[in-house]
């Protein structure tokens, strides 16, 4: 039996104005288990708190009920008070007789009666309270960033600069991501490589950053502060630490017909390659799908020409196990496939290209060395049509397009149009748009410049059909303002393809038990207030894997994610919320129902040995809650049919006692 002390606060006249506090403390003093009951002007004041502390000592109180303002206001205060007097802080319950009583009721009798009921309810709960101790877990002071694009790079740099170790896992042979493929960036038109490559070099040279390029995350277990991760370092058949990146092998390799993915297949590379000149790490990689030596055992040219003796045809995938305190997902995006958009003739004509392909065509390091020509015949195009929202805002057909707005297309299309007009004033540029969306610093000004200074034709309407005719492309679309259907003879058509999360994100999310939305974007813990955290503790989100983003947004989110990681890693120990779920193993039947509703992946199952009747042993599958991961929502407690799952601090019995007390 608890020894309960009741403390009724007047809150000046806030409570005492409509609640007879003396009557409340008298009535509650008569409740079973209550050994001390009093009231005071301001319980939260130093004097009030001292009164509580003294009563705890004098009356050997084991439980405290404070009838005062909302627990959202002063629960923490009174818990500290209790702790200072030597009793467990979770033995305190608050009866909210201000916000939910005195402030809403005008009648003294009514207010007093209700306050007594609320007090009795809190007493009923305290009777069943048990001391709770928050769990502690150590923090591994190392972060893992998955994805080496601008998002991952920025996050890694920020974390490392704060003094923590960071590993970047990048599935491609080099870091850099999509930004490395871009030509110029809006709205300032500075060259993407000029601002990205120095950061790549910073990463490479940073003493606290390790890059696992050509690598993938294979397995993740553990929880916030204590993740165990297995990284698969794919065999690149080149010794990374020996290769000097001289590039001789990539010139001598006889296999010349490998589509160059960096240029989106618009030109070819060798079977051994370095994706681009500024690659980090600048190390060659052998493409096992094309290498004659690896496929037939006959060739070995690269090995012969390599003076550093870096080639190793026997290399195997390597598995690295490492512990991390925090994991950042920065898996980025890809343009969606245009294969299903027959109406735009993408697969029929080489001269219908995506914006990313256009980006490579304009890039000085691209397949045409920056010269804008038609991919089909290398002729300079005089008429270019840009089509916006291809696959974006497309709700009709899920396998074709995406329901969301891809956000970046309006701006890069304006950029492409402007750059084209700037470099080739003889080329006529038309943009079909549904809406032009330019919320961003200097964004609308940028778009207007494209129209006003560069003479880009913007037509409100959508292209219905593109049909190749001879060496021209007939673009049929509507002009909604003129209420006309247009047929434009174009030399080149550029499609602003929607973007989607990288395909690797879904399996990764499963490994991380991080939730995703239906579009495979990672969900954030709170859309407004916790935008860079996953609901799963210790998992953070950076860049377009959380939703479409442009570079400035990505960089700022990357910094924010880094700040969150730094905040986590700077702690030596994590103190959990003790009000977490726990499973009574004697009753659990291992049905996995609770696991399915847990938004945090805090529940796992284990085969455990139990003592059966008559000296037998039984092995049963039972649920276990990881207290460091559980956030205490209690969803599992209701999902569990056997009642094995309960929530500390909000136990079923406690809530039922509250119900009983209210209905008395």
């Amino acid at each position, binding site marked *: 039996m608890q020894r309960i002390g009741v403390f009724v606060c007047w809150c000046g006249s806030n409570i005492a104005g409509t609640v007879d506090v003396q009557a409340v403390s008298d009535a509650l003093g008569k409740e079973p288990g209550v050994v001390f009951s009093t009231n005071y002007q301001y319980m939260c004041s130093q004097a009030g708190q001292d009164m509580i502390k003294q009563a705890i000592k004098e009356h050997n109180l084991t439980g405290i009920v404070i009838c005062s303002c909302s627990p959202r206001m002063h629960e923490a205060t009174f818990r500290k008070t209790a702790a200072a007097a030597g009793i467990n802080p979770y033995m305190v319950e608050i009866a909210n007789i201000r916000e939910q009583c005195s402030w809403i009721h005008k009648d003294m009798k009514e207010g007093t009666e209700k306050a007594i009921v609320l007090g009795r309810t809190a007493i009923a709960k305290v009777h069943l309270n048990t001391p709770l101790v928050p769990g502690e877990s150590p923090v591994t002071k190392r972060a893992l960033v998955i994805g080496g694009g601008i998002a991952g790079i920025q996050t890694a740099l920020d974390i490392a600069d704060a003094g923590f170790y960071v590993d970047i896992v990048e599935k491609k042979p080099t870091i850099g991501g999509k930004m490395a493929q871009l030509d110029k960036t809006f709205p300032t038109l500075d060259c993407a490589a000029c601002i990205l490559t120095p950061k790549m070099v910073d990463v490479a040279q940073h003493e606290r950053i390790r890059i696992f390029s050509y690598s993938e995350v294979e397995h993740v277990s553990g929880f916030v502060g204590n993740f165990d991760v297995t990284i698969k370092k794919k065999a690149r058949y080149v010794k990374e630490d020996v290769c000097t990146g001289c590039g001789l092998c990539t010139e001598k390799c006889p296999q010349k017909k490998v589509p160059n993915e960096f240029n989106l297949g618009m030109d070819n590379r060798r079977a051994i390659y370095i994706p681009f000149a500024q690659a980090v790490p600048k190390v060659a990689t052998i493409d096992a799908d094309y290498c004659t030596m690896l496929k037939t055992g006959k060739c070995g040219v690269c090995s012969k020409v390599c003076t550093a003796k870096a080639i190793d045809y026997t290399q195997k995938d390597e598995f690295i196990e490492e512990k991390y305190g925090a994991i950042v997902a920065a898996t980025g995006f890809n343009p969606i496939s245009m294969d299903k958009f027959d109406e735009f003739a993408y697969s029929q004509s080489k001269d219908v290209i995506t914006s990313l392909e256009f980006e490579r065509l304009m890039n000085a390091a691209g397949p045409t060395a920056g010269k804008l020509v038609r991919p089909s015949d290398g002729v300079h195009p005089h008429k270019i049509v840009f089509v916006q*929202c291809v696959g974006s*805002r497309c709700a009709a057909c899920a396998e074709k397009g995406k329901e969301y707005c891809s956000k970046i297309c309006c701006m890069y299309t304006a950029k492409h149009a402007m750059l084209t007009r700037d470099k080739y004033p003889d080329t006529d540029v038309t943009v079909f748009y549904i809406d032009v969306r330019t919320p961003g610093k200097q964004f609308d000004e940028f778009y207007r410049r494209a129209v006003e200074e560069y003479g880009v034709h913007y037509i409100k309407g*959508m*292209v219905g059909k593109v049909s190749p005719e001879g060496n021209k492309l007939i673009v049929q679309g509507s002009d909604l303002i003129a209420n006309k259907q247009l047929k434009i003879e174009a030399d080149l058509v550029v499609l602003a393809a929607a973007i989607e999360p990288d395909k690797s994100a879904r399996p990764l999310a499963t490994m991380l038990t991080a939730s995703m939305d239906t579009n495979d974007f990672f969900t954030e813990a709170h859309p407004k207030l916790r935008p860079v955290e996953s609901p799963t503790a210790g998992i953070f989100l950076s860049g377009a894997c959380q939703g479409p983003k442009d570079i400035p947004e990505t960089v700022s989110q990357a910094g924010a994610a880094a700040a969150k990681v730094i905040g986590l890693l700077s702690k030596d120990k994590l103190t959990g919320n003790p009000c977490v779920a726990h499973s009574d193993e004697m009753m659990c039947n291992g049905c996995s129902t609770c696991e399915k509703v847990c938004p945090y992946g805090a529940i796992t199952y284990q085969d455990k040995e139990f003592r059966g009747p008559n000296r037998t042993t039984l092995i049963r599958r039972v649920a276990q809650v990881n207290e460091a991961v559980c956030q205490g929502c209690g969803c599992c407690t209701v999902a569990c049919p056997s009642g094995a799952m309960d929530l500390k601090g909000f136990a079923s019995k406690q809530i039922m006692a509250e119900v009983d007390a209210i209905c008395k």
Partner: protein
Amino acid sequence: MENKKDVCNEIIRRSGVNPRKCMKCGKCSGTCPAYDEMEYHPHQFVYMVETGDIEPLLKSKSIYRCLSCFACIDRCPRGVEPAKIVEAVRLSVIREQGNNHLKADDLPAMLDEDLPQQAIVSAFRKYSK
């Protein structure tokens, strides 16, 4: 006019199309092969039904210019299905005139040997609901 609203609702009900889904991109009109024959165009059909300004459409010949090729349905990014609206509008007019219900039995006599299958089906869609 009260009646106008009823007609619109009836068209919406009959076609099963929700014109509010339209984001006014104009892809339907950009796609339509009969565009130039029309006074009002597919995106306008949808808009007119949405706003209830249906009278001019009912009177317009445009609705008979639609080939029921369904290109607009196929291409519409929002799944609005303008051709179904056109069809429902046509039906409203036809029903008003009392020319409803083409009987299947009457058909063979009217059929041309060379009439493509698709056109028969389309005609059914157009005239015999």
